[in-house]
């Protein structure tokens, strides 16, 4: 919303510069986005001139030599190219030395041999219009030499305001003026609708036109007035100037008046050429499905049944509250005007303008919701202007179809003074509260029916009817006018018994992230939505995703079901930029179209709240490593990370959590078929790990790479960290024993370890694989695992005679799986 300062000052002038006023408005809830300077940088050198004579230039057919009185001792000679310049005109003159709009400084110039001591301005040069053919003739009594700024805004400051959606009243300049009045206390001009135009004639509006509203819920009020003997002409300069300063293009007097009144009151209007409305019949109804009409902007629109149209006998002549049509548009020939000021349902306008992809000044105002009473205000202001500026006769009577919906009945609220301080935490006196509210247009009565000091009855004005419905709305008004920034103390709440902190899973996820970071991985954050083909990674699209109905683009239309796709793409981007090795991890959610778990906490996707989440959102950790994980140095480069490096990362995570980790071979389409495994923690499946498939590597330009992706919840579920209890390991020392176990090479090492563990019993406290050997010494197809065993008892020092039988049992058990001790 643009608020030209001069116009605003004519309604309320707090005597503040634009910057000061902007600051005050911004600090009370009306954000000033920008302060624009339009027109000339300064009004100096712009004066009113009187053309005394205009004669043909001796050397140029198209130029005239004018003698112009600009209030100086001698009239000055000005060469002018306009065809319409003539003696007797009052014109706008720029004197040499003045700076024109756009920044050029005007000098004295010789035009075809005659020196011109200034310039007579056209509307274009004054930035008032597009009519550059002729000079602008002023209608003013101002004397020659008077500052032009007294007649026209030569150098105008405009505030560009961000109006919050609850303040439809500030989409009218008088509303902004009221706001200025409220926050500065400067006097507010009488409301422009305080007096109405005089009607004349024996006829009545209903003789000329009729209005039928078929959808009263969507059109709570429709008012219409009729104007006869209208003369269509350009608007006077002052009106044009205000419109332009407010960002509107002048068209003709009638259309300009409708726009001007909308800008002033916030109530949009529409003018019909009544002679183009057959029988003067106006019908307001819902459009039929697929109904078409051409709007003023020359676009054919296809409507639906939720769109409301203003029709004549033959069909739609306008889309209600959004844009008029061409059919009964006001033209140069128009002499009879029907002026519509109607009220439309805000939500319906918002919906329809969204459906049609069409927003206008009118729809912007209606969609916020405005009160039906504003229609008659706008009629009053517009009527006076139409009579004054268009020579129109206001036909007696107003056609007023008012549904009188209960929701617009006048409202009174109760305001408790003590509640104000209780909410705000700062004192405001009853006198101050009363003053603030009254400045804003509220009616305040102290005491009220319920009686008692500090209880007020507050009448809500029509302008604020829709956004002020409760006591808290009044408290907000009081707070902002009183000055939150100025007066509000900074205190801390009494937290009582509440204890803050990270939840266990949050603290542990931080630990897991830190471990990956400290193992050499960089953390990536990739988008939650991906392309439906999941970066072309085979197998990822096997899980059906949650689909976004209205994505910004196709490649952001599916919610990710994995973290791998995004990580691979990120690794690929880095390799393409020349990175030689990339190690990335991500800690975030997958989005699965499944019922969320009812246990496991937020890490599993089990969230607080009565209504279960729509889908499952498990928290995951995933990593992709291309190139070495170990740091390189001048003493040599690390080797490319392989399966066991990736597994080492998982083991690190599992060990930090105190959770048992197991892997079982299992292929995935995107993994190397022989170097891939399913991951479980404490027996619960959690994800996968493996070397990436060569085709996946080729797609991102990598020669080798490993990855894993795990659900965090099973890891945390299996975690024992934090529940450790002390074990005495010093009183009775452990006994160590090394075994070399030979078995078929395809017997998994964890099967051997498990067999040893079971046979060793509770005295066997740990088993570590410290060497693996395959080769001639153990024979083809065989493999030797070297194990270091530690035996310990908690109540005695173990002797050989105790350990020896255990060793026997272990050897026997190994025999059971076809394994033996290396000879």
């Amino acid at each position, binding site marked *: 919303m643009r608020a030209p300062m001069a116009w605003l000052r004519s309604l309320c002038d707090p005597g503040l510069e634009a910057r000061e006023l902007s600051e005050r408005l911004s600090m009370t809830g009306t954000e000033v986005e920008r302060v624009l300077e339009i027109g000339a940088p300064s009004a100096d050198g712009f004066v009113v001139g009187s053309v005394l004579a205009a004669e043909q230039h001796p050397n140029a057919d198209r130029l005239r030599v004018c003698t112009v009185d600009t209030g100086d001792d001698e009239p000055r000679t000005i060469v002018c190219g306009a065809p319409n310049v003539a003696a007797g005109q009052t014109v706008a003159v720029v004197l040499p030395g003045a700076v024109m709009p756009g920044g050029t400084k005007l000098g004295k110039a010789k035009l075809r041999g005659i020196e011109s001591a200034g310039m007579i301005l056209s509307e274009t040069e004054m930035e008032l219009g597009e009519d550059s053919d002729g000079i602008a003739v002023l209608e003013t009594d101002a004397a020659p030499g008077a500052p032009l700024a007294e007649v026209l805004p030569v150098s105008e400051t405009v505030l560009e305001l961000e109006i919050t959606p609850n303040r439809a009243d500030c989409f009218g300049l008088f509303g902004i003026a009221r706001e200025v009045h409220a926050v500065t206390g400067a006097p507010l001009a009488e409301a422009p609708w305080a007096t109405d135009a005089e009607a004349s004639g024996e006829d009545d509006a209903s003789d000329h036109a009729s209005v039928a509203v078929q959808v009263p819920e969507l059109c709570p009020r429709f008012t219409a007035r009729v104007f006869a003997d209208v003369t269509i002409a350009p608007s006077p300069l002052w009106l044009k100037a205000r419109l332009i300063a407010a960002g509107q293009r002048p068209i003709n007097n009638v259309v300009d008046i409708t726009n001007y009144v909308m800008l002033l009151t916030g109530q949009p209007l529409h003018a019909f050429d009544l002679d183009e409305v057959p029988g003067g019949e106006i019908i307001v109804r819902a459009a039929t499905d697929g109904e078409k009409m051409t709007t003023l902007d020359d676009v054919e629109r296809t409507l639906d049944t939720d769109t409301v149209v203003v029709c004549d006998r033959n069909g739609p002549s306008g889309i209600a509250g959004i844009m008029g049509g061409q059919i009964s548009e006001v033209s140069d020939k128009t002499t009879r005007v029907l002026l519509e000021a109607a009220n439309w349902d805000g939500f319906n306008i918002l919906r329809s303008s969204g459906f049609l992809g069409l927003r206008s000044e009118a729809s912007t105002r209606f969609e916020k919701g405005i009160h039906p009473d504003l229609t008659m205000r706008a009629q009053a202001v517009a009527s006076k202007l139409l009579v004054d500026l268009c020579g129109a006769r206001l036909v007696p009577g107003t056609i007023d179809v008012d549904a009188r919906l209960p929701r617009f009945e006048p409202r009174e609220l109760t305001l408790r003074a003590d509640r104000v301080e209780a909410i705000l935490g700062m004192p405001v006196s009853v006198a101050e509260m009363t003053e603030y509210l009254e400045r804003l247009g509220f009616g305040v009565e102290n005491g009220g029916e319920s009686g008692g000091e500090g209880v007020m009855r507050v009448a809500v004005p029509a302008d604020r009817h829709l956004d002020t419905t409760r006591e808290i709305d009044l408290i907000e008004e009081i707070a902002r006018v009183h000055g939150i*920034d100025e007066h509000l103390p900074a205190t801390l*709440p009494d937290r009582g018994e509440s204890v803050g902190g990270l939840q266990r899973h949050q603290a542990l996820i931080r630990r897991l992230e830190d471990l990956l970071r400290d193992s050499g991985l960089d953390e990536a954050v990739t988008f*939650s939505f991906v392309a439906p083909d999941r970066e072309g990674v085979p197998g990822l699209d096997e899980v059906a995703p949650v689909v976004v109905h209205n994505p910004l683009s196709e490649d952001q239309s599916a*919610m990710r079901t994995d973290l791998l796709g995004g990580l691979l793409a990120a690794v690929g981007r880095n390799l393409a930029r020349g990175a030689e090795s990339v190690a990335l991890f991500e800690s975030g959610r997958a989005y699965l179209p499944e*019922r969320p778990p009812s246990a496991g906490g*937020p890490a599993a996707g089990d969230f607080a709240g009565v209504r279960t989440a729509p889908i499952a959102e498990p928290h995951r950790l995933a990593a992709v490593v291309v190139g070495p994980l*170990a740091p390189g140095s001048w003493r040599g480069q690390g080797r490319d990370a392989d399966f066991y490096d990736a597994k080492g990362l998982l083991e690190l995570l599992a060990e930090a959590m105190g959770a048992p980790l197991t892997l079982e071979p299992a292929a995935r389409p995107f993994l190397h078929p022989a170097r891939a495994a399913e991951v479980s923690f404490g027996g619960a499946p959690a994800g996968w790990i493996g070397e990436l498939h060569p085709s996946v590597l080729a797609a991102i330009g990598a020669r080798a790479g490993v990855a894993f992706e795990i659900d965090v919840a099973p890891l945390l579920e299996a975690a024992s960290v934090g529940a450790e209890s002390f074990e005495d390991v010093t009183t009775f020392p452990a006994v160590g024993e090394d075994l070399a176990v030979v078995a078929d090479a395809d017997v998994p090492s964890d099967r051997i370890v498990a067999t040893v563990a079971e046979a060793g019993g509770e005295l066997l406290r740990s088993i570590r694989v410290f060497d693996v050997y395959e080769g001639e010494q153990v024979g083809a197809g065989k493999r030797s695992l070297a194990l270091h065993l530690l035996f310990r008892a908690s109540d005695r020092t173990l002797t050989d005679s105790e350990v020896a039988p255990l060793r026997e049992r272990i050897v026997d058990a190994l025999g059971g799986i076809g394994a033996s001790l290396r000879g």
Partner: protein
Amino acid sequence: MLERIEELRNEARTAIDAAPDAAALEDIRVRYLGRKAELTAILRGIGELPPEQRGPVGKTGNQARVELEGLLGAAKEKLEAAELNARISGESIDVTLPGTPPVRLGHLHPLTRTRREIEDVFVGLGYKVMEGPEVEHDYYNFTALNHPPGHPARMLQDTFYVDPASLGADPELYGTDGAALELPPGPRDVLLRTHTSPMQVRSMEDATPPIFIIVPGRTYRRDSDATHTPMFNQIEGLAVGEDITLADLKGTLLTFARAIFGPDRELRLRPHYFPFTEPSVEVDVSCFRCSGTGVMTVGGSEERCNLCKGTGWLEILGSGMVDPNVFGFVREHGYDPERVQGFAFGMGIERIAMLKHGVPDLRMFFDDDVRMLEQF
């Protein structure tokens, strides 16, 4: 005899002092303390001396021997140390070459770091950290946050909706019966949450007041340019009790701002409008680059501060007192709007990270360029 012992002792002392290396010391040891040495012979022959001489000679002789043994040992140690030093002093290296790191050090994403910093401040203030669903019911994202049906934020151009067919039919969970998305979108629809605020309602359903929580997480809006990405991260805050005021909000956010941006920061609260808070305020923190002056002195001349664009203030978040209508939705969980009150706030983590670290373009956070990540 005693004089002779003294002579031998002095001779040996001088010899030890002068010995150039271990071999010379060994010669000295053999000469003065060896089996054939004179002192050894004297001590061995004590028994043949007159009784009155035996005591003094034995004592002096033994003292001399002990002393010389000590001197020899010390001299030997000293010589050996000198020889070792002489030997290894040639083993020099270039101490300025890079070391060998035990592991490559990775980096947390700047958004994670910033999020944790913010979390830690509020944890210190007694807040609990909560998380909630990102694919959310309209009810929590809009309806229960006082967005009436038809509210502009619900429009398809602003909010991402989920295609119900992709959810599978589970009417109990989202009430759409697998039917097509409501147009215009309405209370039965499922969407990508547009803010972390839905957790206000979920948390209040979950626990009676007083409640002090913050909620970090991903959020989504249909915007994409240098200052908007369709996915971004927020931190929500909610404090509800019986007497929590707007002044408490100011104090809390001032504490937060000073913890994150420095102890000299000031706050500015500008009234604003949000559907689910009333009164609502936007919060600015005084610019930490120009100390709130809007002006930087660069090489003696004054320039407009380009961080705050010369205003001296940086907008960091939106907040306000929880609207009574929101409490109305959780009234049966212990939140009678006449009895409880409190504040809520929401901030963009990206915004805080950009301000703190001078990141110029929001999109850089999601490009995962390691050259960027490794700066943090």
